[in-house]
């Protein structure tokens, strides 16, 4: 391990960890060809790059590595989303398979961690453990796995085993999956592989693993999700939590809750890093940044996208409504199956009530209401202000760092690396060089050890 500053040393400010998310397949990624209306980025982004060509991935990964980021993060989608029974066509769509593109990126980067989101529901421990260990070997110790699960039969239609599991079973299966993978990763620690015998409620596998223990021992495990089951899974199993940014107070509450769960699993608070996914907009002045942020939101939420957002909440076809007119005057249908492949909205009636109040109070159209209520950027301001706010967030124990989600492919991270990273370094809260070679060392995580799997939690 490297000599990372000890977090409890009062003379050393709390260090920030940073990761870069490849811009998503969703409406947060701006794709139309108009240059940004304002801001110094305008000249540098004359057009927007491909979401699939490898050079886009190379540019973003190298930018992250130039900025000394901890890791590069890829999300996953296993079924194209649908709306009103048809393939959703308004947002960026189409992406590579994560593990393969990250293994290729290992050839063009040296230190950057490489994190793949891979669904545990539609994979088997032996095969996925082998693929992740391969990435860790071929990248000299930079692999991470963001463990996700899927509940919907809609996605299952693309897979042999189809079907789905209920929420509790999904986490139980995922926990056993990770445990089995770790048994495999540990099984070739000496001169020859020792056969693994794993028998549990979900998996029953026997035999030798084909790779010696990889440079990190275990690839870093990331978990995303805020539910109580997700928090317990993370406390028991994960090295990093990818959470949603939810303001300083809510962030502190989440942070305290999750860190408080670690002791029960024999782990220390620093053994699990909490990293919210965040967006940012920079400007030379606060006003310019705000103006730029508003323009980005207008471009993220086209008239068509505003109508679609409303249809997801109302659960009804609203194509007869004008996005620049008032909100629909009908009640939402909470049982609608209109949207597939998206997270269900828990209480659509409450959302509609909130939107109506906002629309009336400010005199907003349907589209303006959507712009006002969704997609607000996490950090908006001058580079100095953004650096100060991020530092404050981490000092106040609302996060250990951030997963940045740029809104442009592939140049969206450049302004942050050019303008904010140096200020974080000046503040003494971000590394000025990589001191280790593995992702575990960047994150200051302990050596990988295998907790004994105790079977299913009740």
């Amino acid at each position, binding site marked *: 391990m490297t000599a990372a500053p000890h977090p409890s040393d009062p003379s050393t400010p709390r260090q920030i960890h940073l990761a870069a998310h490849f811009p998503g397949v969703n409406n947060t990624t701006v*794709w*139309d*060809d*108009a240059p940004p209306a304002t801001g110094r980025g305008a000249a540098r982004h004359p057009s927007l790059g491909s979401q*699939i*060509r*490898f050079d886009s991935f*190379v540019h973003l990964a190298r930018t992250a590595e130039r900025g000394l980021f901890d890791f590069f993060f890829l999300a996953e*989608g*296993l*079924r*194209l989303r649908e709306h009103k029974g*048809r*393939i959703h*066509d*308004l*947002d960026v*769509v*189409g*992406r*590579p*398979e994560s*593990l*393969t*593109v990250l*293994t*290729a*990126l*290992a*050839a*063009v980067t040296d230190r950057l961690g490489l994190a793949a989101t891979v669904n545990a529901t*539609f*994979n*088997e421990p*032996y*095969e996925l453990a*082998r*693929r992740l*260990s*391969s*990435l860790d*070997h*071929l990248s000299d110790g930079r692999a991470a796995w963001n463990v996700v699960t899927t509940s919907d039969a809609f996605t299952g*239609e*693309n*897979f*042999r085993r189809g079907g789905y599991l209920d929420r509790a079973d999904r986490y139980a299966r995922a926990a056993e999956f990770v445990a089995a993978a770790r048994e495999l990763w540990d099984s*070739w620690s000496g001169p020859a592989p020792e056969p693994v015998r794993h028998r549990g409620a979900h*998996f*029953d*596998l*026997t*035999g*030798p693993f*084909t*790779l*010696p223990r990889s*440079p990190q021992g275990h690839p870093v495990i990331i978990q995303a999700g805020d539910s109580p089951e997700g928090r317990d899974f993370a406390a028991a199993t994960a090295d990093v939590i990818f959470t949603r940014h939810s303001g300083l107070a809510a962030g502190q509450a989440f942070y305290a809750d999750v860190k408080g769960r670690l002791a029960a699993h024999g782990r220390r608070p620093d053994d699990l890093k909490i990293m919210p996914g965040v967006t940012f907009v920079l400007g030379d002045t606060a006003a310019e940044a705000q103006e730029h942020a508003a323009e980005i939101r207008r471009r993220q939420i*086209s008239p*068509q996208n505003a109508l679609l957002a409303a249809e997801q909440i109302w659960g009804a076809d609203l194509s007869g409504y004008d996005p620049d007119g008032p909100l629909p005057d009908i009640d939402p249908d909470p049982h609608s199956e209109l949207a597939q492949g998206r997270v269900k909205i828990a209480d659509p009636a409450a959302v509609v009530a909130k939107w109506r109040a906002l629309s009336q109070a400010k005199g907003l159209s349907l589209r303006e209401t959507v712009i006002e209520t969704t997609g607000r950027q996490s950090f908006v301001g001058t580079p100095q202000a953004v650096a100060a706010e991020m530092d404050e967030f981490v000092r106040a124990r609302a996060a250990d760092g951030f997963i940045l989600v740029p809104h442009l492919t592939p140049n969206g991270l450049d302004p942050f690396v050019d303008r904010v990273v140096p200020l974080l370094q000046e503040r003494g809260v971000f590394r000025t060089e990589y001191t280790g070679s593995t992702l575990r060392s960047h994150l200051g995580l302990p050596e990988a050890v295998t907790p004994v799997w105790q079977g299913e939690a009740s």
Partner: protein
Amino acid sequence: MASPTPQRRPIPLAIALDGPPVTGRPAAPERFDASGHLRLVRLAERGTLDFVTLGDAFGRPGPDALAVLSRVAPATARIGLVPTVTTTHTEPFHVATSIATLDWVSGGRAGWQPEVSLSAAEAALFGRRPAPAPDAAWREAGEVAEVAARLWDSWEDDAEIRDRAGGRFIDRDKLHYADYAGEFFSVRGPSIVPRPPQGRPPVVIDATGSGPEGATVRQVAAAHADVALVRAQDPGTASAARDDLRSRARALGRDPDRLLVLASVEIELYASGDAVALAELIGDWYADGAADGFHLRPAEPARDLGLLVDGTVPVLQHRCLLRRFYPGATLREHLGLPRPANRYARAREVSR
């Protein structure tokens, strides 16, 4: 025996990189970085070979073959990269998207070699079902090849439109459900990956067909392969297999010239004289019409490949049987195989 079809020049020439595990640092504790494989692939590329194959099996020591060649792709420029991908115990959707991604990261140089897993020991690593019978496993491999081709076609090449006025990123009429339901699995589609640069990365199948399931393997190759490998120790065996594969392809309604049959020959080269003799053998077999090209399987790639590139290749080039540089960029271009039309786009044109 000689085929009536015109012979190809240059002769397709491929090399297998299988052999003792390549660790890159033989003296160090077992550590599988990419340096050993990268050195070999670069050497093969210096010899302007069409493609390398890298075998794989779930019980084989070493990293996943597709991962190794993904890692090698950005560090090479022209040579085709053909990993073995096991179709037993794996998800066809993941198989298709991984190979499509190898094609994207390599700029159109991916192929794949479907293989089956027949051992009880490998089945136990998954613990989901017993090892399949060979015949069933190959029928399943054929289904995976079929569904992969459908998923690669499930995006038309011009599906991405970025229509600013209409707010539409894609033309969803140009995305298609694969809607595959076969004997072994079903897949709905479309793919999550846009159609790869080559349209469909070439399918390479070992069609030697020596076991009892041989006829099934030949049939799967005749239906799905762009390149068939036939292990042979004499030109007569290779030629007979080629005739059989071509007639099967013809019976399936395929143009047999779109199925290249490569004689797969084990080689051991100890001196430059061996390398020259190999060039003579390749030239003779080719003149006899035994094969459309050659897939060489060195006993020790690290030893044999250097002699091949510096000894065999120049002789074949001198005889104008082998290219001196890569005129094309993609594996299909190297092999003279056209980029396939999209079946769904074609269906749409016809129904219009």
